[in-house]
């Protein structure tokens, strides 16, 4: 397997095979990240589409700074933020946003529709986007706080404070969830509830 520098070199020379390898390497992470940020399969696909088409346009003059994966994750976060703001203006009800009819999913996609993931999406949608993306980058994409700060172009103090506020809110929402019969049926909730 080629390392990132070699891949980027070939990509800059116009190799479609290099672009394909980059796509295959990161597509699932980027798609899952966009799904968790936006709670919408089709919009998540569009985000990954736009990010890769924009990236492809940089062939010939792309300069790798840091990790390519982090650059692509940042691109997904930025594009998702644009779409999230557009969506927020429409003020769609939360239940409508997270209600995802299973008929639109392929078998591969269906696997993610566990009750716990649905619950996570629901409570994530109740915290500010800026906090949500940091929590997902750190806990789902395994970026350190320093990498998150570098990726998003903000200070590490801001990252840490947003992370803490977001996590505090999520913990409260989970605790409230255990008292609410409507979400109590979600298995695993008890174990997730902070002591």
């Amino acid at each position, binding site marked *: 397997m080629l390392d990132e520098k070699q891949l980027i070199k070939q990509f800059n020379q116009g190799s*479609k095979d290099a672009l394909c390898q980059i796509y295959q390497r990161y597509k699932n992470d980027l798609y899952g990240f966009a799904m968790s940020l936006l709670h919408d399969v089709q919009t998540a*696909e569009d985000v990954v589409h*736009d990010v890769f088409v924009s990236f*492809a346009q940089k062939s010939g003059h792309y300069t790798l700074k840091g990790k390519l994966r982090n650059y692509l994750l940042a691109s997904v976060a930025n594009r998702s933020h644009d779409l999230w703001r557009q969506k927020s203006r429409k003020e769609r009800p939360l239940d409508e946003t997270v209600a995802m*009819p299973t008929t*639109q999913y392929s078998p591969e996609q269906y696997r993610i529709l566990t009750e716990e993931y649905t619950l996570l999406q629901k409570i994530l949608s109740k915290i500010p986007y800026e906090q949500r993306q940091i929590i997902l980058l750190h806990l*789902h994409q395994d970026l350190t706080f320093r990498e998150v700060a570098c990726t998003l172009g903000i200070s590490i103090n801001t990252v840490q404070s947003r992370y803490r506020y977001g996590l505090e809110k999520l913990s409260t929402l989970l605790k409230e969830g255990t008292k609410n019969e409507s979400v109590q049926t979600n298995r695993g909730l008890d174990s997730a509830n902070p*002591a």
Partner: protein
Amino acid sequence: MNPYKQTEDWIRQTRPDIETPASMDSRILMDSYAAMTSPSSGPVHSDPQSLRRIFMKTPFKLTAAAIGIIAVSAVFLFPTNAGSIALADVYSKVQQVQTYIYNISMTMAVSKTEGAPPQNMEMETAVTVSTEYGVKMENTMHRLDQDKITTQQMYIIPGEKKMAVIMPAEKSYTTTELSDDQMEEFKKQNHDPRQVIEQMLNGQYTDLGFSKIDGVKVQGFQSQTGDDAGNLTTILWVDVDTWLPIRLEITLTMEKKMESHFVIDQFQWNVPVTAADFKYTIPDDYTDTTQP
């Protein structure tokens, strides 16, 4: 002590296990390759109101995706070059047709990774197109790995600016309102071979000479192009007496992970149709599953 450790652990464990579907991979790679070859100056954003997006929100999306593969591949893979007078005549003739019927047979094999056992699919679609009354598609899809057969009907009615998809097996249906722009886009879309002929005309192709199909003397044209990312072969057979297409064969391979073969034939040109041929009825016991 970290008071939120349990919440952190739970979120980590709830990381989605998801794989991108093959139709998404095809779309993104094709568009990215095209962007690599012809980078535009501005940002590229998916149009949420595009007809393709609307198709992909309906249960007809697999058919739309299959047809889309032809179109996108054609746009990407055909290099530009001067056209041919003979093929231009065919294109001109087809453009004059007001009503036509044809059949699409598709076989597709998709592997998640190179060398993995493929998922096989067969699809038959009967298409009726009228510039006045709209489009009707009747689709039967057979997923061989699941031994599952599904049938669907799709109608696009310009007068009503509406698209309807009916699924008899599920006793359900969806309807989608189409704007004026979407209707205009629809007219330019490639639910018929005209788009493919146009792409051949704009690209490089070879004359295959004469042959016979079902006793009819035909002339063939072939385009073949590709690179390390994929290969597309298109063969068009034209009736030498009417200068109208009689058979279109398209083979597309991508990344050694997908191979699809389309045969578009059983053409009937300028057949008489009425508005009633495009009228659909939804039984009372069918459920509306239209997504918001």
